[in-house]
């Protein structure tokens, strides 16, 4: 199943055997592809599983000495539009995000589909079937379908790398944005890839400058209708575009059975392996461009078969485009599960089930049910994600909970601090920036319901800059009353410590021209009550929370903000290094587990006999915060002076 390297006439990459073969993450491979194919501007917003794409661009632009502007933008819409303007100026550009980030960038995406692009423009939108770390398992290919832009669906890191050139070619030939859609199991897969010797890609020869085009860039609704007709025509032509044959495969073993498979993306590789494991050969059509799908390729394939199984994820992009419904099996008829990742076990079971129905012999991999049952009977500790030992957010949440207790409403947001739900101080999270807007909504609802519970929203610094400012303006302007704690750990932690607009360095290490100030932004929104505190200083933090609460209640009051200021302990370990407070649990500990359940630091664990709590010295970072966690005083600093 080796996909040959596609020859792209505009790249002169030497492919001799002395070139280094590197192990690259799928995302890095995409980054390499962007640099190799002459991308001049690459923007992104961090989001698992896409974050390493920009990091790959930065790595390889430095490696090959290429002039590529790279940017961690404030959010995905901003990232998209910055890259779009570059494309309209005749230069190749790209923007990368996770699938829910595409929702944020959807506004310019749909518009840009109509206006079209000049320099090739690639939108990398990484889906997360499962989901492993997202709020949805949505399918970016279906957004492509609705927006009417073509989408390429790579099945391996190497293929994703090679598809970049193809994406740029299609984008420039038809002057449309092109979506490149990897999924988690590709983004975070590692594969051997041969690096090009050198990169000699030259820019387009049209002067590379922005040209006025009133019927496109400033098309009013009447002209938008014409652009729509144009777009529809482009889609028809792209459908029969010869997307490089290397990315397709039409596997027709000699046996000639009546069941075939149409597949794309990582699932294709999973399906091929499943066929090997089942010891069966079936015709398989691999699709490289799920939308707009080549109807001629598909109908030719389906003709000779009685049953066609569609294996794609996370949703029905290919399946919906097939006019032939009788022969098709997929999600719509329940053959394929409607939610969750298509793991090898599930794919195997689907294929096996279908073949059995059609009377074809298979040899499924046996699952030893006896051993499975024995294993299931063993209780293993639950390993859920938790805030790190020493995390400032834990101290903040603990104090918030201490002050307001269970009779409060805690709108939360997306980031490491979502894990505040382990401390039961996060009740909701919807999307980026949602904490503030939801708090706003909860306030309105509380007025109607006569609900007197205080509302305490929490949001991170990067998330606040992403989409927290407008909600704050809205809340203050309309007179909402709630407490907002901005958990400022000076970075975008969960996704890998990418810099934000308040950091002094940019994506590729150069100095920022200017840094934003969260406190100034907050003031400018009209907030009257702003306090900054170190969450480690419990007493002060709690006192401020009390004052904040009063501020939300008094006549002249409104939104009250506390900025919880402490750098992420992984990002900036030096900051906490000189504040070492080793602790111990005294003999008097009665094993009530309050600290374990409410403070829930991984550095605290039960003794083997389960009677008392002890410090796990392998995980404890000596922050001393748990001293406050035990209200009975059984956790004490080791050297009391």
């Amino acid at each position, binding site marked *: 199943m080796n996909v040959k390297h596609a020859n792209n006439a505009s790249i002169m990459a030497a492919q001799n055997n002395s070139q280094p073969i590197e*192990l690259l993450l799928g995302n890095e491979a995409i980054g390499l592809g962007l640099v190799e194919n002459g991308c001049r501007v690459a923007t992104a917003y961090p989001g698992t599983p896409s974050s390493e794409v920009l990091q790959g661009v930065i790595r390889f632009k430095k490696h090959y000495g290429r002039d590529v502007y790279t940017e961690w933008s404030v959010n995905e819409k901003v990232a998209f539009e910055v890259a779009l303007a570059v494309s309209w100026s005749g230069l190749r550009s790209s923007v990368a995000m996770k699938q829910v980030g595409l929702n944020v960038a959807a506004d310019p995406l749909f518009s840009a589909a109509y206006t079209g692009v000049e320099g090739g423009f690639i939108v990398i939108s990484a889906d997360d079937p499962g989901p492993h770390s997202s709020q949805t398992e949505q399918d970016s290919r279906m957004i492509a379908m609705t927006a009417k832009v073509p989408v390429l669906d790579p099945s391996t890191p190497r293929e994703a790398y090679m598809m970049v050139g193809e994406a740029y070619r299609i984008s420039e030939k038809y002057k449309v944005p092109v979506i490149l859609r990897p999924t988690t*199991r590709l983004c975070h897969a590692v*594969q*051997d890839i041969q690096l090009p010797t050198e990169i000699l890609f030259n820019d387009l020869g049209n002067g590379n400058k922005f040209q006025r085009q009133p019927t496109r860039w400033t098309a009013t609704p009447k002209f938008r209708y014409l652009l729509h007709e144009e777009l529809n025509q482009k889609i028809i032509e792209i459908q029969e575009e010869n997307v490089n044959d290397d990315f397709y495969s039409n596997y027709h073993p000699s046996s000639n059975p009546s069941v075939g498979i149409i597949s794309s993306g990582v699932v294709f*590789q*999973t399906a091929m392996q499943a066929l090997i494991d089942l010891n069966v050969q079936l015709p398989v059509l691999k699709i490289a461009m799920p939308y707009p799908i080549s109807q001629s390729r598909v109908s030719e394939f389906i003709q000779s078969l009685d049953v066609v199984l569609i294996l794609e994820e996370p949703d029905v992009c290919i399946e919906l485009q097939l006019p032939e419904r009788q022969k098709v099996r997929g999600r719509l008829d329940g053959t394929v599960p409607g939610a969750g990742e298509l793991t090898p076990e599930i794919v195997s079971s689907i294929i096996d089930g279908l073949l059995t129905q059609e009377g074809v012999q298979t040899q499924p991999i046996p699952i*030893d049910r006896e*051993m499975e049952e024995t294993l299931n009977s063993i209780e293993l500790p639950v390993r859920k994600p938790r805030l790190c030992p020493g995390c400032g957010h834990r101290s903040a949440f603990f104090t918030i909970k201490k002050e307001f207790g269970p009779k409060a409403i805690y709108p939360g947001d997306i980031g490491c601090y979502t894990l505040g739900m382990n401390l039961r101080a996060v009740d909701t999270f919807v999307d980026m920036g949602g904490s503030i807007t939801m708090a706003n909504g909860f306030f309105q609802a509380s007025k109607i319901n006569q609900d007197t519970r205080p509302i305490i929203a929490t949001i991170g610094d990067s998330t606040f800059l992403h989409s927290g400012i407008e909600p704050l303006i809205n809340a203050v302007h309309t007179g909402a009353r709630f407490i907002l704690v901005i958990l400022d750990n000076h970075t975008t932690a969960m996704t890998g410590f990418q810099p934000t607009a308040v950091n002094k360095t940019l994506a590729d290490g150069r100095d920022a021209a200017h840094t934003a100030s969260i406190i100034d932004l907050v003031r400018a929104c009209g907030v009257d009550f702003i306090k900054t505190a170190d969450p480690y200083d419990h007493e002060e933090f709690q006192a401020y929370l009390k004052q904040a609460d009063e501020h939300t209640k008094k006549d002249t009051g409104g939104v009250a903000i506390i900025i919880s200021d402490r750098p992420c302990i992984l990002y900036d370990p030096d900051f906490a290094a000189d504040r070492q407070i080793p602790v111990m649990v005294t003999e008097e500990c009665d094993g009530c587990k309050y600290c374990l359940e409410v403070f829930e630091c991984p550095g605290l664990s039960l003794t083997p006999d389960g009677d008392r709590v002890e410090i796990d010295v392998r995980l404890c970072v000596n922050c001393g915060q748990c001293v406050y966690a035990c209200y009975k005083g059984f956790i004490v600093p080791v050297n009391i002076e």
Partner: protein
Amino acid sequence: MNKPNELKMILTGLGGQGVVFLTQLLARTALSLGSTVMVSETHGMSQRGGSVISHLRFGDSESPLIQKGTADILIALNLDEALRTLMYVRPNGYLIINSEKYLPEKIEKHLTRLGIQSFTIPADQIALDLGSAKMANVILAGFLSGLNICGIQYEAFRLTLSTLAPQYSRLNLKALEEGFQAGVPKTYLSVSAASRQ
């Protein structure tokens, strides 16, 4: 040295135990011998105390995930994660666990029945004795090469290890050797419930 044949390995442990480094070590060593490599790692929230699983494949297949019941070798950096991922190992496959304790007897019975050979090594303690608990993963790599079941020679691991994390090279190579020495006598033996007296 020859490249290893088609091989499917599962590596598992907790975030912070060095599963990713071990995966890199194995993958790069195989690569240096001319093998094609496909690895699937868990990222993101795994660093914050969660379980980490790497699927590692040498050979032609480009499927990122390994199906349960088909992995040739499972290497676990702790006992709990071994139990959590045990269903991945195929009959007549191998299991290597970093643990002070042995597998529960009720599990050993199934392993014997399925022809799965399991090896337990207290790598944490060995690592601590060498100077740092963080080297348990390297000890396991050495152990693996000593067992002679993955088609990769000890020398190949040595070469790759000295280029990865060069600042810890001396200690790492010592750890690799300790693991190797522990693995060699166990080649061709299976540790059954009866023999662990």
